[in-house]
């Protein structure tokens, strides 16, 4: 009895479809984001959360703008020939001065027209990053400015004294334990720390003045650490335009002389394994080094812009 050919045909089609799907999937793995040609000509890079040089990636960890990752994204967008302009979507209260400077430098080196779009907050280090772009757009209610440096820590000396705990000090170098929370800060130490902060503040002011093409003396007057609303910042010359994403895109369209805007969102890829890995490593690290030392470490002097 002759067998129906359809059985063989269906088997063949399933096999071919399977092979096609696997091949297409494998090829898509090799095609990088920078090769995508969906017509995008504007790249949007998020700078969200506290700016740090090395952010954690746990599932429950707070938003961190990791400068290592963000600078990578900026360079990726800068290298992509189809991307003509970059929008930095900023929602950050600032963070580490070094990390902020790293991102700001990457923006300046991008060799593409850049716009900072400040959303809720673009303050301190967040504003430093924004200032590096060619144009700043913020909502009239955005919190921005806050040009200043802060450093703080909790001092436990009185608490330890009350509980009859003494701090035994052994140092090679008089100021090696400068800023330890376990003893009172001496006056000379206070002067040293303040001088460092002042120097950082000076760098910050210098950068803002240079980026915004404002006289340093003028920026110095504004750099009291106070934050400004978007509308105030516009009057003070810290922001160029009041608006949102639309205004940022319109600016790029006008500057680049392009009629249509295709947006490509650049994001730090976080796989589930990364997230779980980050969560587990953070917890094991804390358990490993002991809760007490962890607390002590956290209360040491930390500097933020």
């Amino acid at each position, binding site marked *: 009895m002759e067998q129906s050919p359809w059985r063989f045909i269906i088997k063949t089609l399933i096999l071919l479809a399977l092979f096609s799907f696997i*091949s297409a999937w494998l090829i898509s793995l090799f095609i990088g984001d920078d*090769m995508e040609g969906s017509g995008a000509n504007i790249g949007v890079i998020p700078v969200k959360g506290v700016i740090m040089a090395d952010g954690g990636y746990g599932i429950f960890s707070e938003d961190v703008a990791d400068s290592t990752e963000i600078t990578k994204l900026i360079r990726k967008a800068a290298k992509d020939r189809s991307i003509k302009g970059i929008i930095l979507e900023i929602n950050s209260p600032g963070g580490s001065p070094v990390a902020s400077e790293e991102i700001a430098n990457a923006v300046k080196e991008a060799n593409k027209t850049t716009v900072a779009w400040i959303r809720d907050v673009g303050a301190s280090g967040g504003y430093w990053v924004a200032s590096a772009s060619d144009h700043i757009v913020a909502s009239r209610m955005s919190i921005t400015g806050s040009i200043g440096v802060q450093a703080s820590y909790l001092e436990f000396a009185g608490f330890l004294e009350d509980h009859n705990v003494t701090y035994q000090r052994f140092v090679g170098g008089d100021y090696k334990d400068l800023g330890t929370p376990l003893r009172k800060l001496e006056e000379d130490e206070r002067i040293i720390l303040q001088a460092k902060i002042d120097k950082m503040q000076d760098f910050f002011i210098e950068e803002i003045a240079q980026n915004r093409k404002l006289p340093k003396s003028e920026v110095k007057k504004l750099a009291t650490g106070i934050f400004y609303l978007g509308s105030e910042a516009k009057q003070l010359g810290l922001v160029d335009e009041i608006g949102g994403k639309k205004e940022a895109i319109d600016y790029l369209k006008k500057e680049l002389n392009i009629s249509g805007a*295709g947006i490509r969102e650049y994001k730090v890829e976080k796989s589930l394994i990364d997230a779980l890995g980050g969560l587990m490593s953070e917890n094991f690290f804390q358990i490993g080094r002991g809760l007490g030392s962890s607390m002590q470490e956290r209360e040491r002097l930390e500097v933020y812009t």
Partner: protein
Amino acid sequence: MASRLKLPKERNFEGPAPAWKRLVAFIIDLLVLDFVVVLPFRKVFARLVPDTTSINSIYAYLTARPEINVWLTFISVMVGILSIAYFVILEGRLNQSIGKLVMKIYVKSMQNNITFWQHIVRSLFLLPVFPFVLLWLLDPLFMFFTASNQRLSEILSRTKTVQNYVVM
């Protein structure tokens, strides 16, 4: 009554399949291939090619990005190879693709049984690279202007597409 009549016996013979049947069969096969082979690659294509209808902007985009050209060529060749596999597997086993089965035509060797290489040669026009793309023009020309309705690929592979004719 009919059995008492001395009617001439039915005669079957193979002859060249008409061009229109071959064309319809090919269109059916293309539809099948579009669904089975091309569809999975569509998403990858969409990622590489700009979302525009302007040929000029696509051309400008691809000229500026040779690395994408390489990937597009690679994917096209991959689709071509899988399409060849479709014809080789089905015609190798059944002497018919789905289109030919529907149109009741089939492939035959001009010598003995068709070999694997004969199947390959007759399907080489599916590779979208030079010189095989020349067959896109030459194959139909040969099919419509030769008495045996053979495509150039068929002449080269010494195969033909036939159908059964029944005459009294």
